[in-house]
């Protein structure tokens, strides 16, 4: 267990400082060679991502609701729901085996523009602007 490359040993190591152990955990992710995640890891990471998303969404909604609708690409009703969540509710919603946010550019056109597919880096600025215009024009998904 202790010497397995997956690093479960890291979690068993007694640590008083939660933050630094979290930090070590994330560091490990960057250094690690790609390996399959265990299902506990998958669940933990999904919860982490969901929580970050919900917290960010909530603070965006609370600081400027209208701009948050644009940034998040969600409807007024959804914004109302997320904005009213308590921390306990957030924890509950975040826990699960699916992500709460979804991909916003599931088409080749925008995707190729964003990744500058098929062109040199020279035109990247133009392509990204093009992608921004296309994405800003898509309000039917939100409303």
């Amino acid at each position, binding site marked *: 267990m202790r010497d397995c490359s997956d690093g479960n040993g890291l979690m068993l190591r007694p640590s008083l400082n939660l933050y630094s152990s979290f930090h070590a955990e994330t560091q490990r992710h960057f250094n690690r060679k790609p390996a399959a995640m265990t299902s506990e890891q998958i669940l933990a990471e999904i919860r982490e991502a969901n929580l970050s998303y919900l917290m960010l969404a909530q603070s965006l909604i609370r600081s*400027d*609701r*209208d*701009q948050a*609708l*644009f*940034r998040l690409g969600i*409807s*007024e009703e959804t914004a109302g729901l997320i904005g009213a969540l308590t921390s306990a509710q957030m924890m509950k919603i975040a826990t699960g085996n699916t992500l709460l946010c979804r991909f916003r550019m599931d*088409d*080749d*056109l925008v995707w*190729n*523009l964003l990744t500058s*597919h*098929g*062109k*040199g880096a*020279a*035109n990247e*600025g*133009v*392509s*990204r*602007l*093009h992608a*921004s*215009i*296309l994405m*800003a*024009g*898509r*309000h039917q998904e*939100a*409303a």
Partner: protein
Amino acid sequence: MARNKSILSEARQIERAVTLIHLGARLQVLESETDLSYERLLRLYKEVSGRSPSKGQLPFSTDWFMTWQPNIHASLFLNTHEYLNKVAELDEIDTVIKAYQLYLEQISAQGLEPMLSVTRAWRLVKFVDNGMLTMTPCSKCGGHFITHPHEIARHYVCGLCEPPARAGKGKAAGSLQLHSEPRIDAASRAEPRKAATAA
């Protein structure tokens, strides 16, 4: 706009005016969008920006929005504006302010200089409101771009799918550049079109 003497509404108007001044709006915009008197606006302007407002007429024609780079900037702003218009219920001027802030953010995130001033953005919305300009979907990428009204949609291709010959050659800092390498011309432009038709 109804003349309202309520102090609360006046406070809101001052706040709005201050935001607009910070964004660099000309005095004419403030005069048109608030009920505050010219004298008060002038004082507010000096207090907020620390200088006198620029004088003279607003130098606008719809043609500016048709040139390559301004058209791209203005289209980005107007798409954002339309988005907010659809999803949020805001007063017209607040929609302009918020969309303009988002435009500025997006431009600076991409390392470009904003070309569209808030005054121009405001005029643009007016132009669209009274039908002097409109948005037409590009027949290649489907994005909405600012055009003169009655543009034939079936044949319209935006300046990003097919940049005009001299586009993107300017050397000004923060302006859009199209390929510094000399050879790309035909080849690179054929590429996105292929992607567009495939999509």
